[in-house]
């Protein structure tokens, strides 16, 4: 989707600001391509500076380039945080320098995550991070602001919640095309409202609809829609 279409959707659905990233999901995430993807987001931020926040995608396997890209996008050009995809699990040592850098900068890491129920689907993304992976790395870096992506991204979301219960410092975003009845109430019950972040992941009607439908108090909705993420933004150290 273009930046203009995204802002059009935001206007339609009443979303004020949105975090966008452009991860490489299929091709090899080589540094030149990573830069091009991040340039797309930087362009969108420049075009809609009051609406679009950027998340800097990096491939931690390219250690030096990943650090340089964080400097370029987050430090020099105001991106909000870092986006990681399934090139590696969140708890693999290759991620540690990125996590340590984000701790130093006081910015969050949003990680693509899920637990596809079928073995053949898991084989398609062998390094997809599960709740248990987050729990593992959160023990090493409890001060990191890790965000487990899209609870409704497709997979056994109940299992994800069980894993994330063991990682009290990890946030969870509520996006994804799966909108199983009761999902949001279960997220609140298992993790607590303070760890949940509103998100759409390309489907505003589903992202918003599941929150509208969930049985939540006004205070819980406020935290979910914005207050929790604003707390994250306030920890920025640069």
């Amino acid at each position, binding site marked *: 989707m273009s930046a203009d279409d995204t802002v059009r959707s935001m206007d339609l*659905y009443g979303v004020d600001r949105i975090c966008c990233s452009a991860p490489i999901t299929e091709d090899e995430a080589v540094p030149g391509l990573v830069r091009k993807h991040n340039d797309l987001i930087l362009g969108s931020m420049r075009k809609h500076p009051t609406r679009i926040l950027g998340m800097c995608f990096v491939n931690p396997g390219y250690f030096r380039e990943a650090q340089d890209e964080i400097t370029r996008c987050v430090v020099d050009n105001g991106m909000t945080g870092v986006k990681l995809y399934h090139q590696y699990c969140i708890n693999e040592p290759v991620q540690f320098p990125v996590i340590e850098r984000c701790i130093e900068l006081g910015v969050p890491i949003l990680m693509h995550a899920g637990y*596809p129920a079928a073995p053949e689907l898991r084989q398609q993304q062998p390094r997809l991070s599960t709740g248990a992976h987050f729990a593992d790395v959160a023990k090493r870096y409890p001060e990191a602001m890790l965000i487990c992506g899209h609870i409704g991204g497709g997979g056994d*979301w109940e299992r994800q919640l069980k894993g994330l219960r063991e990682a009290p410092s990890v946030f969870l975003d509520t996006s994804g095309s799966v909108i199983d009845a009761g999902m949001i109430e279960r997220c609140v019950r298992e993790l607590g409202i303070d760890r949940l972040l509103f998100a759409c992941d390309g489907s505003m009607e589903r992202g918003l609809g599941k929150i509208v439908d969930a049985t939540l108090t006004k205070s819980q909705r406020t935290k979910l829609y914005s207050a929790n993420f604003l707390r994250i933004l306030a920890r920025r150290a640069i």
Partner: protein
Amino acid sequence: MIIDANTWIGHWPFRALPQRTAKDLLKQMDRLGIGKALTGNLNGLLYKDVHESNHELARELRRHGDRLVPCALLNPLYDGWRDDLRQCREQFGMPVLRLTPDYHGYALTEPCALELIAAAHEIGMRVAFYWRVVDPRGRHRLDPGREADETAVRYAAGQFPNAQFLMLNFRRVLDKPRPKPACLYDITLFVGRNGLRLTDEIAEHGAATFAVGTTMLLRYGSAPLLALEKCGLAKRDREAIEWRNIIKLIPALK
């Protein structure tokens, strides 16, 4: 008025549903401004004798017939289905037969499926095909449900050139074999692209191709309604999707 073409009540054995009853469904419908709904019984997906679920559904909806219209489930591999089908139509007043072949162990290309469809049409029932009941990425290992073989759906529908079908939980409009208005698609899965996709689908296929559907009580219900609201359709087209199209297909909903 809004009519929901795709709702369920009952027990889903692979995940704890927060709400399961007709009363629960009506509460959700009231909240979303939905006046009437076509409703099936999830229990019938896994019962050996599927028809017992039709008895249950008829009993559960008896007091709510003004708003919840029951849909039959049957297995054409199970003895006695012809009598059961007749009972669904004549005694229980079910105007729709839902087919879920993965759960009942047959394929839409098999003669038994075609016999069931033909028998339903003969007694004035509409047949509903499912593309899927739940998202297979989160499927329990014992859940036999899969995404439908679209070739098989096309084949089965193609055997009945004068019939009209209800297409539930499809993700896209099938290009063949029928003129589009002959198949009415519920909009449950015609969402995405940040809330802009449904607008494009309606522009491409026409308002006559779609009907409101939510897949409650398996899913939250607001998303397709939000998407429809944001389409900015002319009143005539919006009403067509909200209720006119489904009433035309299933007059019992009047």
